[in-house]
């Protein structure tokens, strides 16, 4: 318990942001009509590729001779970008079809 309180104490700001972000997320998404659930999901899926930022940081911080870190970081960047680019591109393609005809 003490450790938990200490964690909150040391990370107060991030805890606030975490909780506020949850509320923002729920409020933004809950009103989305069922028609758009699939694009929402693939768009959100693309957003989860934001983990790529961490993968790039891994590579930037890696020692150029640390082949393990470089290899793992490299794969992480490839997979993250795949997630981002593929996700946004396919969402765009899908939404292209949701056109209202006159």
């Amino acid at each position, binding site marked *: 318990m003490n450790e938990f309180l200490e*964690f909150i104490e*040391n990370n107060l700001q991030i805890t606030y942001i975490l909780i506020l*972000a949850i509320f*923002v997320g729920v409020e*933004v*998404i*809950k009103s989305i009509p*069922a*028609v*758009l659930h*699939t*694009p*929402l*999901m*693939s*768009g*959100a*899926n*693309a*957003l*989860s*590729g*934001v*983990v790529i*930022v*961490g*993968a*790039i*940081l*891994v*590579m*930037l911080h*890696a020692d*150029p001779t640390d082949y*393990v*870190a470089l290899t793992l*970081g*490299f*794969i*992480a*960047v*490839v*997979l993250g*970008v*795949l*997630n*981002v*680019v*593929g*996700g*946004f*591109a*396919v969402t765009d*393609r*899908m939404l*292209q*079809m*949701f056109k*209202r*005809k006159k």
Partner: protein
Amino acid sequence: MGILLNIIYLIATVTFIVGLKMLGHPETAKKGNSIAAAGMGLAILGTVFVHEQQVSPLIYILIGVAILIGSIIGWLIAIKVEMTKMPELVSLFNGFGGASAALIGLVEYGKNVNYATQSTTIVSGIIIGAITFSGSLIAWGKLNGSLKSVVRIPYYNIINNITIIGIIIFAAFMVTTGVDSQLVLYTLLAAGLIYGILFVLPIGGADMPVVISLLNSLTGIAAAITGILYNNMVMLVGGILVGSAGIILTVAMCKAMNRTLGSVIFGAFGGATATAGENKALGSIKSTTASDAAIMMNYANNVVIVPGYGLAVAQAQHVIHELEEMLTRKGVNVKYAIHPVAGRMPGHMNVLLAESNVEYNMLVEMEDINPQFSNTDIVLVVGANDVVNPAAHNNPTSPIYGMPILDVENAKHIIVNKRSMNAGYAGIENELFYNSKTSMLFGDAKAALTDLVAEMKNI
């Protein structure tokens, strides 16, 4: 430099929120997606270039190559995939995101073993990332049919629960002792991967929309956890947004099937207790022909089409649109009734019909269409079964009892297109077919609808 990067991240975070918000309306959705994508691009470029670190050119080249490879493959997959394959694709991409989070954790663990906060986030990131990765791959395999739909090892519930509890205890041990061993680290990774497989394998095909939503949510949480590790707000907020979206869709899908999340994960759906064996005669069925059906629809005022996944399997989306256009030209008021779990992922049927150029404002959600059925002359059910089964209302022993359905039996007449009298996905008898107002139009959806359109032209 530091402040510039932070401003870039701040802008990216705002684009994510605004983009998601705009995704909520058909008119603005496309723009919203582009805005979020632009923000993501900005965040990626900022991370690569805006810092004061000394980085060897080799690393820049590697990052560039990795981004190039990922972009090309991602792009090619995205432009080639068929819309019926969307659930598989989302699962696959989702798995990649999870894998990325797990790999980051593997690299960072050694440097942070002595700091409890950091190692807690790293260990959580590895576990969740690994579960999402292997779980998504299993889901992908099930959706594209290369894996048998349901695999249940004996006592799978107990085994799964023991596995996850074991993983948590093991992780707690790693954090508290600060053990810096590659063996221990990779054991954790392997355990996470195994749990992901065990977790998705027993889940049945009908529950796939729930699983995909849940896995999507988990990837977001993995990204958010990694954000805490780097004290990086764009990752934290972006990840949480995805996590929330996934949870909301998961709950929506559960509600649409009248199932609790627990019963999906520890499910017994379609198990030995299902009443599939009870094949008692429910009365007689009446079959009709394409020409009779065409005449009936031609002289109707209001027609509602109920498409199910069977429609997409038969590739009949285009023919049904042709039929709908033809009826509209003849002055018939046509609408589509979309059940929330029509298809293999949330909202899938809407995308499939939109691809065939059906206007989205003709697609009516369940709550809005249900009160209208009593004023409907003809309901045409194509490739749907369980979502129109009245047993959900009036048979407490049925496995689908309590599930919200489309109340098509309130319409004046119902035409059901079906290949044969076999039971639906859940293996349950459907008394709608024996209703005196129902006529069965037997045949493959595409062939039957093509005939219907041809007959309609002759009238």
